[in-house]
């Protein structure tokens, strides 16, 4: 049995009286693509931020490649992040840097590559996400939302990570652009042989990019199965969510 690249063990997180994560257990094997689905406010983003080390859990443990990184700091945290890529919901591109400087940020600031070599690598990576070199010198504000997502994807894959997190990768995109982003995610994740953890509401996206789908509800993973089985999960919560029905055990968040 291989060591999971990521393992969350009984992870808990509270904000005051709001108990957001109530014992999340999740394992992701190397090369596996797991999609986490769940309604608004179910704790998906908080779970992701805990896994990334942007938040520290109040309880439980987080393991990366078998090492406990729950409270890792300094070099240990940096070593973990060097092997991780992240695509943020908003893209989170740095406004003050050009597209190529965004893509090559880690190469320039962490790996200390020369600007000419870093730019060459950035343009090569932009090509992988179907963006030409003409985009490289533009600023994020000068390109469309879909292009920003692709640039963010390029930034997350440039250092060939072992694990990539995707936070709502298709939110705010038209269906055609969203599908193109899904294709790129699949192509790049499989090309790298990386594991992927995606959180999304978008079921077509989940069905397309997932090996496994897990559902987070009220701070716990309540179901996990193969993507192909999601329509016959036998779980009322999953059934309501994947079919997008207002009636059912999950109360709409309004």
């Amino acid at each position: 049995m291989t060591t999971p690249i990521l393992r969350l063990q009984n992870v808990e997180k509270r904000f005051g009286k709001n108990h957001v994560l109530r014992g999340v257990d999740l394992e992701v094997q190397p090369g596996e693509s797991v999609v986490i689905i769940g309604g608004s406010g179910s704790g998906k983003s908080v779970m992701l931020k805990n896994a990334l080390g942007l938040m520290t859990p109040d309880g439980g443990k987080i393991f990366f490649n078998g090492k406990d990184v729950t409270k890792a700091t300094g070099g240990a945290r940096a070593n973990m992040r060097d092997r991780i890529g992240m695509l943020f919901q908003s893209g989170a591109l740095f406004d003050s840097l050009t597209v190529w400087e965004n893509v090559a940020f880690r190469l320039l600031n962490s790996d200390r590559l020369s600007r000419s070599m870093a730019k060459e690598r950035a343009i090569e990576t932009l090509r992988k996400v179907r963006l030409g070199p003409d985009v490289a010198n533009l600023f994020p504000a000068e390109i469309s939302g879909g292009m920003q997502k692709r640039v963010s994807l390029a930034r997350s894959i440039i250092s060939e990570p072992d694990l990539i997190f995707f936070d709502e990768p298709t939110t705010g995109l038209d269906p055609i652009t969203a599908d193109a982003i899904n294709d790129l995610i699949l192509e790049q994740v499989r090309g790298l042989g990386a594991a992927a953890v995606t959180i999304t509401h978008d079921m077509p996206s989940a069905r397309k990019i997932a090996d496994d789908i897990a559902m987070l509800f009220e701070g716990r993973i309540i179901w996990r199965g193969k993507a192909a089985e999601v329509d016959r999960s036998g779980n009322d919560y999953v059934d309501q969510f994947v079919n997008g029905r207002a009636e059912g055990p999950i109360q709409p968040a309004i």
Partner: protein
Amino acid sequence: MSNVSTNKRGFPNPLAWIGAATLGLFSEVGRLSVFSARVKIAAFTPRWYPAEIWKQIIRIGFFSLPVVGLSAVFIGAALALNIYEGGSRYGAEQFVPNIVVLGITRELGAVITGLMLAGRVSAGISAEIGAMRVTEQIDALETLSASPYRYLYAPRFLAAIISLPLLVILADIIGVMGGWLVSVYGLGFDSTVYLRNTLDFVTRNDVITGLIKAVVFGAVIALMGCYQGDRSEAGATGVGRAATLSMVGAAVLVLAFNYVLSTVFVEIGL
């Protein structure tokens, strides 16, 4: 203040209100102190980002030249007029150059520069970092193994403590020239005598005290901007509130530190 207990009529219990306000103040001071210590450690230990520091020196220092220059010339001019008016009551008009240069170098050059930059720079830093916080750019920095303390806050802090003294030297020179302009062309002073009196009167210590204040004001302005931006809440209102808080906080702290430093300088005879 929602946790403060209320009486039967719904008015807050005064003791509970004072207690909650005091606790709130202490926790805010504690958070700001920890944040400041982390920024200073990042600023004075490797690794540094020279390109970011240079970029911030241009933004904080170079682009503040017009506002600092204009403010200084008008302050110097108004100071000369008022000293002339006050001095004429005692037949002491001849002291205009002496008091203008003393007031500008020891006090007004640094204070005016500090207040102008509290508005222009501290609020700007806060709005920029606040926007980065709410658009997840700071989270993105961390995931890319770059510390926001080293990449964002330390360069602004270093740029401010380098730029402020240079701006204050400029404000001193322009402020004195503002007084000279009004005195020579409006009040009938002889240009050579005015300038000779100014140079004979001003001491190295007068200039140094202003420069020490400038370094402290630079630190206060950058720290308040970074701190409020880092704590910015989501949305346009949150970022706007952070900018307002940083500007007001920096301005008040500039004036408070000015008083403390002036007292210390007088006590030690500097």
